[in-house]
């Protein structure tokens, strides 16, 4: 882990990164990073950094590296070498230019998808290492502008989209009113203490994709479930602070989420189709707070749909006709193993299912996850160019007959939308909830 690998690409402008490094001095950098290495850089960091044997197996696992003709600068080991390994080796004595570049790599060229960890013979978790690098950048105030703004929104509103409290409630009223025109007596129950389920969503749903709340309400209504949604902050399960490295805000918003559910005395949280939120609720935010698991059972939408169909609570009137393929979101597949449940639901609801290859836990990331899409327009070219292999994968599925890609994750949707348009794939993109809503028996 000694030499820096030369980069093939030019840094893109980003106000958060560019202005962030302006005030940095070598002394400030060293002091901040040494303090962090002492306080948070434990055995795990040392073991991972020192264990890498540079075997290169991780390179073939990374969509960025595969999409850049195996340029070693994009390999997971190369990214480690160019970022956190240098910090460890130099005991934090790095300059502002290094931090600018390390931030760019850690925030925009790694999706924290953990595919490489699966292929590493030693199980080195590069996602963890990139998160440590991001945490250091956060501590230095060098974070991409757009995702930092999202973290600020989390800190103020406990949601990622600056959705104000009245806007949230009003959106639920609006969706309930619309849905009542289709489903007599449908209700989106607010603040129903003692309900069995709290349904939680991510910020973009009330902001841009309110129809997903409508569709979820239709499923709950048809299945006759005892559910509620909060009228207070704590409704958003998402977490970009987790990805900026602001662990304190990550813990704070996870507290808000769990404690909203506990205040309402629900037995479980069912969450919409979001991958990173599941990681935050079930893996990272909980651990920062001291919970081994989450204090309230958390069920991802994929598992929820599967249970509804298994228990006969949701009945389908028809099958979706267009041939579909399925994108496996990293956080709920590699992170939770929900891939077979997803396939069961797809097969139950769609006439023709065409696997994309590779699939299940070997699937390629969408290149939006890990907060990369939240770094905003300045970095869109990076993630689109860095996921040519995804475009090729989708193209093969299309060649096999797929017309529709099902992506049960918000960030995957955003990322795949860009891949599909940028590479001219002409595929439709849907949530699994879109398919179920279309095919369900409507009471």
């Amino acid at each position, binding site marked *: 882990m000694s030499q820096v690998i030369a980069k093939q690409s030019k840094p893109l402008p980003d*106000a*958060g990164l560019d*202005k962030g490094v302006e005030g940095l001095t070598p002394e400030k950098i060293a002091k901040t990073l040494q303090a962090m290495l002492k*306080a948070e850089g434990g055995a795990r960091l040392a073991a991972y950094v020192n264990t890498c044997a540079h075997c290169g197996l991780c390179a073939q696992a990374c969509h960025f590296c595969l999409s850049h003709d195996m340029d070693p600068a994009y390999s997971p080991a190369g990214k480690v070498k160019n970022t956190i390994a240098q910090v460890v080796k130099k005991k934090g004595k790095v300059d502002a230019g290094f931090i600018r570049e390390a931030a760019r790599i850690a925030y925009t060229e790694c999706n924290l998808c953990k595919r490489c960890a699966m292929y590493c013979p030693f199980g080195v978790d590069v996602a963890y290492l990139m998160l440590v690098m991001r945490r250091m950048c*956060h*501590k230095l*105030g060098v974070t991409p*502008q*757009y995702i*930092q*703004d999202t973290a*600020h*929104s989390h*800190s*103020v*509103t406990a949601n990622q989209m*600056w959705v*104000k*409290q*009245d806007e949230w*409630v*009003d959106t639920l*009223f609006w969706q309930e009113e619309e849905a009542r025109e289709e489903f007599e*007596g449908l*209700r989106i*129950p*607010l*603040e*129903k203490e*003692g309900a*069995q389920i709290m349904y939680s969503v991510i910020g973009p749903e009330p902001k841009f994709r309110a129809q997903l709340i409508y569709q979820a309400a239709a499923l709950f209504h048809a299945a006759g479930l005892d559910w509620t949604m909060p*009228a*207070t*902050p704590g409704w958003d399960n998402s977490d970009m602070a987790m990805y900026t490295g*602001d662990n*304190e805000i990550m*813990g*704070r918003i996870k*507290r808000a989420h769990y404690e909203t559910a*506990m205040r309402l*005395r*629900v*037995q479980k949280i069912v969450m919409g189709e979001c991958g990173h939120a599941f990681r935050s609720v079930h893996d990272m935010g909980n651990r920062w*707070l*001291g*919970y*081994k*698991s989450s*204090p*309230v*059972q958390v069920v991802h939408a994929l598992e929820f749909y599967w249970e509804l169909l298994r228990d006969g609570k949701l009945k389908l009137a028809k099958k979706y006709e267009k041939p579909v393929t399925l994108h496996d979101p990293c956080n709920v597949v590699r992170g939770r193993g929900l891939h077979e449940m997803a396939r069961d639901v797809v097969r139950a609801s769609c006439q023709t299912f065409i696997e994309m290859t590779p699939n299940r836990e070997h699937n390629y990331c969408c290149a939006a996850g890990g907060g990369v899409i939240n770094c905003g327009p300045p970095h869109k070219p990076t993630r689109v160019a860095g996921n040519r292999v995804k475009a090729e994968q989708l193209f093969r599925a299309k060649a096999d007959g797929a017309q529709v890609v099902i992506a049960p994750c918000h960030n995957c949707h955003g990322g795949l939308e860009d891949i599909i348009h940028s590479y001219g794939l002409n595929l439709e993109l849907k949530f699994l909830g879109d398919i179920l809503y279309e095919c369900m028996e409507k009471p």
Partner: protein
Amino acid sequence: MKSPGDWEAGKRQIADLSLWKETFSYMEEPYAAPDGETLAAVVQTGEMEFSVCVNGQPWEAVFDKAWYPRFTPDGRLTALVSQEQQWTLAVDGVAWESGFDFAWNTQFAANGQGLAVFAQEGGEYKMALDGNGWEEGFSDMGDGALAPDGSACAAVVQVTSFSEGDIFTFKKGCYTVAVNGTAWEQAFVNCWTPVFSQDGKSVATQVRVNLYDYTVAVDGKPWDATFPCVWEPLFVPGSTSVVAPVKTPKGWTLARDGKPCWSSFFVQLLRQRFAPDNKTVAAVCAPKYGRWTVAIDGNPWKSTFDEAVWDVVFSPNSKRVAATAKDNGKWTVVCDGKAWDEKFDMVFAPVFSPDSGRVAARAIVNGKQALFVDGKMVAQDFSRAFDPVFGPQSDRLLIKGIKDEANRLVYSREVLVL
């Protein structure tokens, strides 16, 4: 809480909910008054016309929308209502004269007197106390609080506007707390969970002074010390002194006025509560990773639970503590460190008897609600129940619940002799 007047043993039917369902085309889940004499639910009374049904009779006033029906601690019935696109609070069927573009988040004073709501008017945010909105509005509003005697209200407010994406102005500090509509002079990066002192004259809040340093501000002035994180502050009753959990290099501990006041440190520390004698403090803590319990004056119970501890309740004599805890997927009640044998799918906050000798709790088991006293079931099979209330002599328990009786859904009030 208003003391339930009728303590004569026996059961009395208050409402036939099956009849309500036959009468109204739409009905939401009902809520019971503290004394159990009244049951209320939002109902639809006509096309796009809603009201609140009280013991079978809807309020005379009807609205375009009604939601969040809740009783005050002294037994008045409130609901958030809208009429002709104006939102307000209705109390016992009478809407406040003032209306807003939106109103939500009803706040109840501990003594039952004051009522406040969050309100938005013309894109500006404010609180309205007993119908009177703050004169000045703010561009956004966060957590709010109402003084225990209902005399004042406060909320986190945004005092400097910035565009979405302007991370640089944000970092300068754009938020503070407004008390009765007047913002503190000093602004912070963030403020959370303001809380009033017992006399309603002081307000404390969590603040983030930059992106990394947290502390508590009291009446606008931050503590001298900062920490990597803090949680909700709480005034020491009868004083302007404030305690809050703070994170230190050794772990979480309780700080008073900026200085650690406990010698013990935890993986996590939350939700501190003072005993009625104002001397003892109890809080939820994790003495080690993934194990949860209650710490009293810094000393954790020996028994720990693997998923969560939530409610922490002191007995009236300040000598006992009851908590709710989740272990291995099931909730239970823990009294003085000893868990009940009974396990539940969900449990509600435990209630002590006035003599501090008994503990009651409402729980959910297999989809039905039941009531337990000292771990023994005393009533069951409710489709919906409400928190139990002990009689003044501690020998009786008021049970409020809805049951299926002879194919009728019936709400009854029952006084059980223990």
